């Protein structure tokens, strides 16, 4: 026994020594220096110095001194920037074990002061694979005004369309609550509609967004439970100017085809002590026509206003309060049994951010929020409302907080924190039998005071070892849920279905580890492995009979569901060359255990409540499914003002043992087992090309885009999917910056007026015809800045 213990200690000792040597045995060169004013020769503090290709940043101290320790030998570019000085770039070479001492002279450039503003974004991410992002400039140029639709420009992201707006993102085959959609890194919204006609992402207007971050895989665990990836929508923040200053932005957008009008007005201002932003948007769109001239009911009327105000009680400490309200009116969803009649959403948040910048404590962030959605929908524009008018009223609330601390631990960075989320949901459906004597009305619960609470603690540690960045993260969630008894009565009040076993509690452990290593100046590799665990959501646990799937079934919640776990492996290869361009290839494999799916329930147990469905499906856990795929993207260098970007991606998902139900005369009459049936709602292979040319010092940039989508032959038979034809569509846009006050973006989407639909588009309700995409759309965005 003693010997065994000793052997273990010896092995552990060797590992530690080996690890230590790995860390510190590399040669160590240093770059240090001083930054001074070229005229006065005075030292300049707070100069930002970026060293590339390492992309490491340091800031000069009060004596103008800076240092980059432990640099490998080689050629580097140093960029010096300061608010009051012109930028300076220095190219240097350093040998092994050399300490290079520099003296850098900067020329004063006061006029930059007026242009300078700090926009506080989310904390720095140490994600083991590439974080993709969409900036406000890209959003402004986007041919689509739906936030989720703009995500489609990124590889392996698609959307589920059910109407003209509020599309729902799908990333690497993961969708709905398998994705963590968060606002400002911590605020959440629980949509009202069980059919996700108002997913969380639809409650934010595109013109209020500063940036969208996309973190694929179950690796970023600090934003809450993460199963398949994070979409972090960062809203525009008030500026911190040195002197009080205000700015006004007005945007007018028009889209042909569906006579779409969209207006935006925002006013922001402040100084280093106080700041604010006020913003409002209004959108009104009609029905659109497809490429073959068919009119699709897609009208929408949305408006919202929001404000954020904050102050800095001390330098580097900020407290802000945000409030927003958004409204949707008469929004058509031809692929759903109901349309949105009204949607009133409130979002409040209180934020604190403190930058300490001392030896150990870097930053503390705290955020508390409350969101509430009042959602009303009905079937009054459906043909079956001639006999039964159904009106659903749903209230969904979400309350939570997130607190995190950012520390310097040794040579690494440690983030730890806690978050909490409490979702409550209650909803009714009233059915008016309008052709029957005395107008009988049946009330059914969709959710009956259901709630889910999730308390989590998380930590993330990252450290750089020479050419290697390592990131580890862990997360522990305690998830509890309950509801009133799941009950469905007939017209006489007699129970047709009763389930009183509604409580569930889970403790979920998630973790991830990843590494990035620079193999050379141009090539780097990344590797990540993670396990993200997600407890069942409100719909999967407690929905009481609604047709919410792609197939024609009423769905029934299952409070006994287990959490599903995504065990994912990612590999990434990056190539970066100033002359040849940048390329990234990444591939992933996900093994999902206890995958949440659904199986048919015999009518002897429960009968469907929707006229046109064939039966009832109840949510269940499958043993496992797996998904895999790749993404490739390439950005060319700018040669003679011409450049292009191309990407390609595919995801495949497999259910090793799926059940297909045999339907005859609109009833389930049998079933068969399918081996290796593709998972439902997985998009096919897709490739995008964007080519652009920069005229007149970037003031005019025409851009041509081509989108190629292959036919989807891998469709789920178990979920009654069908083959989808491939298509190619082309678009064109031109960005014209007249001056600092006026910018015009105009373009054409679907130039050749192609009639097509995506594999993920739902079917028009009551038919087998897919919902087609809009035909040709000419759009113009006028942007005024004062």
């Amino acid at each position: 026994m003693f010997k065994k213990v000793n052997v273990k200690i010896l092995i552990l000792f060797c590992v530690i020594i080996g690890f230590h040597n790995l860390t510190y045995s590399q040669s160590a060169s240093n770059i240090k220096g001083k930054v001074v004013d070229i005229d006065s020769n005075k030292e300049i503090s707070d100069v930002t110095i970026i060293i590339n290709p390492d992309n490491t940043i340091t800031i000069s101290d009060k004596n103008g001194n800076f240092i980059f320790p432990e640099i490998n030998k080689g050629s580097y570019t140093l960029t010096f920037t300061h608010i009051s000085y012109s930028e300076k770039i220095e190219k240097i070479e350093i040998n092994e074990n050399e300490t290079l001492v520099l003296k850098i002279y900067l020329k004063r450039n006061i006029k930059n002061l007026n242009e300078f503003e700090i926009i506080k974004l989310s904390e720095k991410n140490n994600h083991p694979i590439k974080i993709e992002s969409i900036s406000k400039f890209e959003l402004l140029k986007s041919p689509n005004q739906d936030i989720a639709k703009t995500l489609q420009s990124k590889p392996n992201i698609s959307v589920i369309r059910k109407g003209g707006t509020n599309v729902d993102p799908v990333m690497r085959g993961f969708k709905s609550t398998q994705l963590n959609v968060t606002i400002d890194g911590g605020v959440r919204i629980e949509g009202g509609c069980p059919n996700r006609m108002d997913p969380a992402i639809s409650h934010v207007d595109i013109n209020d967004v500063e940036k969208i971050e996309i973190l694929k895989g179950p690796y970023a665990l600090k934003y809450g439970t993460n199963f398949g990836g994070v979409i972090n929508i960062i809203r525009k923040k008030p500026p911190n100017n040195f002197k009080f200053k205000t700015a006004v932005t007005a945007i007018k957008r028009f889209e042909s085809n569906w006579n779409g009008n969209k207006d935006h007005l925002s006013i922001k201002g402040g100084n280093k002590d106080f700041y604010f932003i006020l913003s409002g948007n209004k959108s009104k769109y009609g029905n659109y026509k497809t490429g073959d001239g068919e009119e699709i009911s897609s009208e929408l009327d949305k408006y919202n206003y929001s404000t954020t105000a904050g102050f800095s009680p001390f330098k580097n400490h900020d407290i802000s309060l945000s409030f927003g309200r958004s409204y949707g009116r008469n929004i058509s969803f031809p692929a759903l049994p109901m349309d949105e009649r009204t949607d009133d959403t409130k979002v409040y948040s209180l934020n604190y951010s403190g930058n300490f910048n001392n030896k150990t404590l870097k930053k503390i962030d705290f955020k508390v929020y409350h969101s509430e959605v009042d959602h009303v929908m009905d079937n009054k524009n459906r043909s079956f409302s001639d006999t039964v008018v159904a009106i659903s009223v749903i209230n969904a609330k979400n309350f939570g907080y997130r607190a995190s601390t950012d520390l310097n631990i040794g040579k690494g960075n440690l983030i730890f924190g806690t978050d909490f989320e409490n979702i409550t949901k209650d909803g009714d459906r009233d059915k008016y039998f309008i052709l029957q004597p005395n107008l009988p009305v049946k009330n059914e619960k969709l959710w009956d005071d259901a709630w889910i609470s999730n308390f989590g603690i998380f930590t993330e540690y990252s450290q750089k070892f020479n050419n290697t960045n390592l990131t580890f993260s862990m997360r522990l969630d305690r998830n509890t849920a309950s509801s009133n008894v799941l009950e469905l009565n007939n017209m006489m009040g007699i129970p047709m279905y009763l389930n009183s076993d509604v409580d569930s509690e889970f403790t979920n452990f998630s973790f991830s580890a990843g590494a990035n290593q620079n193999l050379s100046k141009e090539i780097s590799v990344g590797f990540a492995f993670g396990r993200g665990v997600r407890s069942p959501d409100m719909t999967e646990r407690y929905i009481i009979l609604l047709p919410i799937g792609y197939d024609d079934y009423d769905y029934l919640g299952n409070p006994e569901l287990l959490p599903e776990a995504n065990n994912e492996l990612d590999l990434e290869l990056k190539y970066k060359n100033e002359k040849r361009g940048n390329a990234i290839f990444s591939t992933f494999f996900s093994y999902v255990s206890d995958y949440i799916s659904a199986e048919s329930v015999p009518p002897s147990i429960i009968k469907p409540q929707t006229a046109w469905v064939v039966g009832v499906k109840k949510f269940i856990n499958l043993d496992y499914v797996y998904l895999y795929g790749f993404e490739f993207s390439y950005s060319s260098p700018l040669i003679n003002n011409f450049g292009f970007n191309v990407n390609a991606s595919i995801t495949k998902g497999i259910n090793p043992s799926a059940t297909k139900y045999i339907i005859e005369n609109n009833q389930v009459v049998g079933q068969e087992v399918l081996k290796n049936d593709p998972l439902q709602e997985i998009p096919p292979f897709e490739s995008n090309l964007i080519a652009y040319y920069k005229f007149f010092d970037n003031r005019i940039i025409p851009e041509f885009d081509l989108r190629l989508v292959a036919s989807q032959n891998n469709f789920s038979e178990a979920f009654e999917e069908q083959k989808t034809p491939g298509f190619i569509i082309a678009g064109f846009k031109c960005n014209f910056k007249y001056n600092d006050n006026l910018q015009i973006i105009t373009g054409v989407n679907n130039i050749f007026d192609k009639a097509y639909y995506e594999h993920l588009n739902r079917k028009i309700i009551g038919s087998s015809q897919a919902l087609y995409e809009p035909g040709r759309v000419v759009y113009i965005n006028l942007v005024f800045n004062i």
Partner: protein
Amino acid sequence: MSACEKFDEEKQVSYLISNCESGFNVTYRDKNRTLIKKDISTSSAEDNWSYSFTCKQGDIVYVSAIYNDISSEINVQILVDKKLFKQASSKYDTLNFVTVSGTIPY
């Protein structure tokens, strides 16, 4: 839930029952969305019954009637902004209600 929201356009709705000389029982949904039942007496087929109110798009309108005299007949109509929205009629049938209903179109 209120089907009549302020963003929806107001409509003038009329229920009209005609051509029934024997009297009838009527059930209708009024402006407060309450179901009202009334016995109506008529002395000739020219005696019409009507009820008018304002409503908004999306509201449910409902009127249903039955008569007692097997030799009688009835015509039930819903008018929206003085235009015929829906109608139904019955002759020599005292067993079945004549029901006209729907939602005011958006």
